């Protein structure tokens, strides 16, 4: 009887309402933001469309990394593995089987998700640093393999058939939908009982199973979802790059971008990665587009400064400071409206 009561999680009812309400609110906000982006695409010129497409893909990439790294606490250095396999699956199905881009993108997502699920079995046995290095090794191994595999043209690379690539307006829409799917997934995960259990695993993976949470199962789901979302973003990147080589698609730079965006914006939050993606992409990547080395230098430096001095990331910092300012400015109003219960007299200090 006791165990049933425990596994039913007595807090569930209490949590369910506010959680779902907050999640619904966030989804509503997402729909509004999506409509705004749609309108922006209508009035904006070619520049907005191409910038927007890449930014959306980066938001999806960052959010996918955040779901794994921020919600589940598994720091992955293997983003390139999923970007690469998805892009290759897309290009190969489109060129060799004559598939259209939606079918190719679906193939990429399925392949990336499958790879993620397969890698989860060995990788999830590893903790912390080991997991990070394991994902890095998997990516480097895939890069080395594709560089020498004649089926995928070795280091010459592959390309998406240019006539099958959608136009600029459609690309913007595709990017927007991909970003909405990624952010939507993050919202659903964050404000649900699934997300609460995930948080429990992240905070203490020894205590969580004692509460009846299937640690491996939850992490497996998160890894597959994250891999599929990275695959989606990878499809957008493949369509915008058209032709690519293994060293570019399995590169460390995908991990660097995703990690920098998420950590700077705010790991483990939904808005943080979006803020980070916008800040890094507009603030650094496009400003220094002609100086890739300098851009990398700034990203590394900013990452170091943030992790050293603003460990939670920028978004939580902004939220905290705003709250602090508001509370400092208006204490009298609050007290006048609702008098707090008199605090118990503090015990003598000595």
């Amino acid at each position: 009887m006791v165990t049933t009561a425990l596994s039913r999680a007595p807090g569930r009812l209490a949590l369910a309402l506010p959680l779902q309400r907050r999640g619904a609110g966030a989804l509503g906000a997402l729909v509004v933001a999506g409509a705004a982006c749609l309108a922006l695409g209508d009035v904006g010129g070619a520049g907005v469309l191409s910038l927007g497409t890449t930014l959306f893909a980066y938001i999806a990439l960052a959010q996918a990394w955040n779901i794994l790294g921020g919600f589940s606490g598994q720091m992955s250095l293997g983003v390139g593995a999923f970007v690469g396999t998805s892009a290759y699956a897309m290009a190969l199905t489109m060129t060799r089987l004559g598939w259209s881009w939606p079918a190719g993108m679906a193939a990429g997502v399925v392949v990336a998700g499958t790879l993620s699920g397969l890698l989860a079995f060995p990788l999830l046995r590893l903790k912390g640093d080991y997991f990070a290095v394991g994902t890095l090794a998997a990516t480097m191994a895939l890069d080395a393999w594709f560089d020498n595999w004649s089926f995928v043209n070795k280091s010459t690379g592959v390309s998406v058939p240019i006539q099958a690539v959608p136009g600029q307006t459609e690309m913007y829409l595709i990017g927007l939908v991909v970003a909405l799917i990624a952010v939507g997934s993050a919202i659903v995960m964050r404000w649900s009982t699934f997300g609460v259990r995930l948080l429990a695993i992240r905070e203490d993976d020894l205590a969580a199973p004692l509460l009846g949470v299937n640690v491996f199962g939850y992490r497996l789901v998160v890894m597959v979802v994250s891999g599929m979302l990275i695959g989606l973003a990878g499809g957008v990147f493949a369509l915008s790059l058209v032709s690519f080589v293994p060293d570019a698609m399995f590169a460390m730079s995908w991990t660097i971008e995703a990690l920098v965006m998420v950590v700077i914006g705010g790991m483990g939050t939904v808005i943080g990665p979006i803020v980070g993606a916008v800040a890094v992409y507009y603030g650094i990547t496009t400003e220094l587009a002609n100086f890739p080395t300098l851009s990398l230098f700034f990203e590394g430096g900013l990452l170091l400064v943030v992790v050293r001095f603003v460990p939670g990331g920028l978004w939580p910092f902004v939220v905290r400071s705003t709250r602090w300012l508001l509370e400092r400015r208006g204490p009298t109003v609050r007290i006048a409206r609702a008098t707090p219960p008199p605090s118990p007299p503090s015990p003598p200090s000595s």
Partner: protein
Amino acid sequence: MNATTLVNGVLEGGLYALVALGLSLVFGVLRLINLAHGVLVVGAAYAALELFDLLHLGPFVALPIVIVVAALFGYVLQRVMLTNLLLKGPESGIVGTFALAVLGEAAFAAAFTSNGVSLQSSLATTSVKVGGVTLELVLVVACAIAIACAGGLQFGLKRTRAGSVLRAAAKDPSTAELMGINVRLVFALTVALAAALAAVGGVLYGVSTGFAPTSDTSLLLIAVAVVVVGGVGNVTGTLVAGLAMGLAQAVSVSLFGGGYADFTIYVLFFVVLIARPKGLFGQGAF
């Protein structure tokens, strides 16, 4: 598969062991995979290159200077950066050292272009014949230095007072602190020593193989693979694992061609990490 390839592979493994010793030390003492370790190795090679350009010092004359600079850098790095990150939790350690790796790679590319270079030394082009096997002299020297470093480290850790202080700080920092050990100082000196070992490995790697700003990732992975196979903090294990890794690479190169050299290391690493996360030879000194 001829004997020359295999023997030179094993000798090159000595180089891997040398690169891995510093990583193993930091991993064992600070419980942190220093993702910037490869950058330290490559940085030492670039420092030697710069000393040659400025003062025309050969790599082996420059080596002592590079070692001192690297050790100072490691000390300051730990004092200013890593201690604070580690106090915030393991995630900050991963992100922080990853940021250092990104920063270092970008800095090298900006200062020295992204082309590959190598350190010039007469040693690199000399080979000796021993009983029908042609040995590259630089690899022989590297292997000898690796064995000397491993021996010195093992002796220092197990037989000296400083070594027991370090092991105490690694095993249980808070208790060590209560016993009057300045743990922060010990940690900083550990990173300094690791950086010095990385510098030795970096200069030898620069002479024997050559390097580019992006060499650090594969060096890091090789080092982690060697540490994992040999057991964290296990000095002898690290040396043996390094030699074995060199041999495995030589075998795969002669079987499948040079393109798969790195692939072998990564796959091997993956297999060992999954099958024996504590290493083939078990935990070592810590």
